[in-house]
């Protein structure tokens, strides 16, 4: 499902004069399909960088990386979009499109995948009902609270039934009740068969939902589990 072998990552043009310091060193681990993993570590440990590698926003500078069975380091650029469509991402800052309604934001992955509009209408309406936003279909993100925006972001991440679901500090902007509700949604997705990785430094939340963890510090993986 996901396999890292001695992966290193540095930002900027690798090898060029602008190359920055390496932010991830010798990361090696494998995730079987259908598991739930916490991704833990202090701020600056490299959690977001590791997730960026997993959702194909970066390519490894060295080492070997396979996502959903595809070797990423040597893959042609044009083969990546179809891979990205099988990965759902909940970003720390939501990254909703401000000029689109909640409905259109959630419908976006399906439209990019070329699904028929009739199916999209049914699926998106159902999904927004599932996350408790049935009455806010037409609202643009700016008219929604932080928690509601977060739920739109979740709905967009899971609408296309991804095989891999990644969340970067998804509870950072939420109060306890909303964070708890979000965790129920993520675990529900995991129960339905999706591989889920959640980066967090909310110890209380992790304590309430015990699961195996990937622990990062200073760009190195300290323990798997």
């Amino acid at each position, binding site marked *: 499902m996901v396999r890292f072998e001695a992966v290193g990552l540095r930002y900027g043009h690798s090898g060029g004069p602008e190359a920055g310091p390496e932010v991830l060193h010798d990361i090696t681990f494998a995730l079987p399909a259908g598991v739930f993993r916490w991704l833990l570590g202090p701020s600056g440990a490299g959690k977001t960088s590791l997730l960026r590698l997993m*959702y*194909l*926003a*970066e*390519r490894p500078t060295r080492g070997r990386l396979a996502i959903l069975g595809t070797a990423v380091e040597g893959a042609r*650029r*044009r083969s*990546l*979009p*179809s*891979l*990205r*469509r099988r990965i759902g*991402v909940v970003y720390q800052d939501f*990254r909703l*499109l401000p*000029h*689109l309604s909640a409905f*259109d934001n959630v419908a*976006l*992955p399906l*439209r*990019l*995948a*070329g699904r*028929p*509009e*009739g199916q999209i209408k049914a699926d998106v309406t159902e999904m927004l009902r599932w996350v408790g936003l049935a009455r806010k279909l037409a609202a643009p993100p700016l008219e929604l609270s932080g928690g509601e925006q977060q739920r739109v972001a979740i709905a*967009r991440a899971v609408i296309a039934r991804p095989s891999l679901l990644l969340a970067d500090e998804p509870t950072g902007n939420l109060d306890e009740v909303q964070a708890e509700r979000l965790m129920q949604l993520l675990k529900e997705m995991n129960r339905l068969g999706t591989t889920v990785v959640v980066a967090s430094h909310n110890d209380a939340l992790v304590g309430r939902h015990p699961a195996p963890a990937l622990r990062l510090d200073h760009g190195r993986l300290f323990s798997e589990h």
Partner: protein
Amino acid sequence: MSGVLLRPAGFDELGLRRALSDRMLPLLVAAMAFLAALSLAGWFGAAALTDQWREGVGSALTVQVPDPNAVAASGETRLHDVLAVLVGTPGIASARALTNEDLTRLLRPWLGSGADKVALPLPGVVAVRLSGASGLDPAPLAARLESAAPGTVMEDHGIWVRRLSVLARSLQACSLLAVVLVAAVAAAVIAVATRAGLAARRQAIEIVHGLGATDGYIAGRFAARATLLAAVGGLAGAIAAMPVLILLADLAAPFSGRPPAAGSVADMITSLPAPLWLALPALPIGAAAIGFLTAQGTVRRWLRRLP
């Protein structure tokens, strides 16, 4: 198939309706199309004039035979001998002696209606038409005419036509260059507008890219918008150029042998040469093609910076 629609009409996930605004770009493209229309009109105008000169004067010689009715050594009139030489020369399609009535008509602007009564020793005038573009060498012919009827003068209009043709061809080349430059400037304007749009929508593009949009999809969205705006601009420019072109055609009419338009719509339509009527609709189509290709190229090149 109703309901099976990939995207609802007007779905603008990248916010291009504001990022590629419908004000500045069509206006600039309209100005370019206007200039292109003028250049094309110059091209067709020069081409038409060249053709006309070549047909009218280019294939013609004038031969003047002084004292035409005098009897030459052959026993025939001098005019007859000159005609015989001309008819027997390869490369000459026809040789026709002008009648006295013809000559009178030619002289009327200078001598008035009583030209035929003026006792002037008029030469015999032979209008010669050359066949096609055969390279008739005038010097040997002039020598043979001189021996048949001494004092005969041959006037070759070809040299003027050749000079005018070179001038007209140069004008055509300039017009073509102007069209090419205008197209290049239009492409540059569209590229700049597209880059501004990319910069303004960088975040939206990154989000859509992250959700699995292909380069082709994103470039297609920009290209659709740029094509529409460029086509609108091209259409506006072509329409704006039309009254100017009709006015110019009207002013040029006396030089190309057509009567000036009397003011009716039909006259105005026929006052523009037919090729121009075919070229004008090509302007919005060409502008649209430039918009499409430029936006596709610009966006695809820009997208290569994303993983």
